[in-house]
């Protein structure tokens, strides 16, 4: 079979436009995931039993279900929840919103585990010292523990971000027109370029993820030096 990569060119801008969708979901999820993940991690380590159990249950439930099932679940549930709780304009694309919510809640479970490990890696003496200096527990957490924990775990959080960026291809199953869907299902099927498109999308992902993970490694070396 002769591969014809030349035919990708006329459709390139349409296909690459889909990449924006993946980046948008990645960015939103990383931000929300870290915020919610931090809260979950603090709950896991708090002295209130209810909070501890809630965080434990949340993290374990999301970590035992495949992302694809989570996406399907939210695809079903979100339109109804939106109607019930939020007053979003009816013109919102519910598939996009539901994917966003699913990713954010799902990833937060993974982020919270990284953050919990980060917090626990800060030595206990520092908390005792902060308390002895007259700080409240909250102040100690905010001003002493978290800044150090985040410095340690930034590379891990970024690596998780790369994994997440790859996972966003799964919105393919919701027929959302992301990079992979546009390339393979729309242009590939229409113009008979499926083989070329699979190789092309793989190459694009490789270049992006490889480059970013190299940068993360470089950053990690500088931080730990």
């Amino acid at each position: 079979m002769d591969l014809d990569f030349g035919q990708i060119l006329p459709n390139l801008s349409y296909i690459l436009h889909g990449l924006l969708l993946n980046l948008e979901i990645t960015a939103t999820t990383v931000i929300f995931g870290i915020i919610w993940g931090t809260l979950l991690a603090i709950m896991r380590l708090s002295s209130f039993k209810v909070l501890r159990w809630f965080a434990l249950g949340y993290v374990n439930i999301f970590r035992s279900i495949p992302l694809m099932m989570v996406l399907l679940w939210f695809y079903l549930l979100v339109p109804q929840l939106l109607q019930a709780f939020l007053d979003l304009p009816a013109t919102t694309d519910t598939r996009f919103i539901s994917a966003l919510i699913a990713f954010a809640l799902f990833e937060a479970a993974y982020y919270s585990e990284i953050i919990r490990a980060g917090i626990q890696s800060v030595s206990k003496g520092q908390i005792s010292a902060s308390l002895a200096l007259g700080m409240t527990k909250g102040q100690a957490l905010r001003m002493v523990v978290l800044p150090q924990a985040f410095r340690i775990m930034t590379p891990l959080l970024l690596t998780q971000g790369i994994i997440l960026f790859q996972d966003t291809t799964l919105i393919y199953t919701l027929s959302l027109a992301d990079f992979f869907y546009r390339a393979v299902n729309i242009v590939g099927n229409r113009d008979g370029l499926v083989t070329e498109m699979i190789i092309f999308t793989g190459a694009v992902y490789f270049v992006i993820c490889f480059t970013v993970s190299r940068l993360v490694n470089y950053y990690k070396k500088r931080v730990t030096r």
Partner: protein
Amino acid sequence: MKKKTQLAKLVLSFAMLGAISHAAIAEDLTGTLAKIKENGVVVIGHRESSVPFSYYDANQKVVGYSQDYADKIVDAVKEALNMPDLQVKYLPITSQNRIPLLQNGSYDFECGSTTNNVARQQQADFSDTIFIVGTRFLVKESSKIKDIDDLKGKNVVVTSGTTSEVKLNNINDEQKLNIRIITTKDHGDSFRTLESGRAAAFLIDDALLAGERSRAKKPSQWVIVGKPLSYEAYGCMLRKGDTQFKALMDKEISNYQTSGQAEKSFNRWFKEPIPPKGLNMNFDLSPEMKALFAAPNDKALD
């Protein structure tokens, strides 16, 4: 003087009539129409690769024979609700998710290539029939396959969640044909499976086969064969129990069919070059379709 009062009475009664009928509409709107009125937007479910019923043209715009019906229905909704600026949104659906997404309110109605059958009527309502098809096979001309008996022990591809999938599984079981069934996510995937040689035949509604064939690299290589395994009536699908919306759709469809507009749309999509490649489906209006256009109805054919 007398004349004046009469005129005043007339005006008053008209005004009251207007007020009443206006109130009546506002009060009586139920189900989907009420939802559309409240949100100011109607969401149409559409297919991405049901050529030539509902699919993307080269500019990723939804077009097709069924889409013509959907446009008509939107016009009728705009008129009935007195909302000329009603916003129209499109949601791509697949065979697998079309029913749950209808039920959970993601979209309001769809005109694509959905068969109206007794089983589905448990979950959704259907408008008057918009198209009648026979379920047949698409095969490579050089393969010499003529009917289902030639497919014993071979690979046949069907699209997941379609009536063809059910039918083929049933017949395969009853007649012990040992056909190896491959299921895929959508018609585009199915045709890709056929074209790559992974399956010897693709079973689906004949009009869709003609559509898939028109998108092939070499359309003349592919032929539609076999006695129809069944006849299917396509309808537009709406939420179950929504009689008000169904009445509006049925009225619009029956006008469209009896006035000859539907046949024009048929000729446009089945006998003339269509996007994206300008190929011609060369598909004739069947006697069943002629009968339908003369007497619109919403009967399922199973």
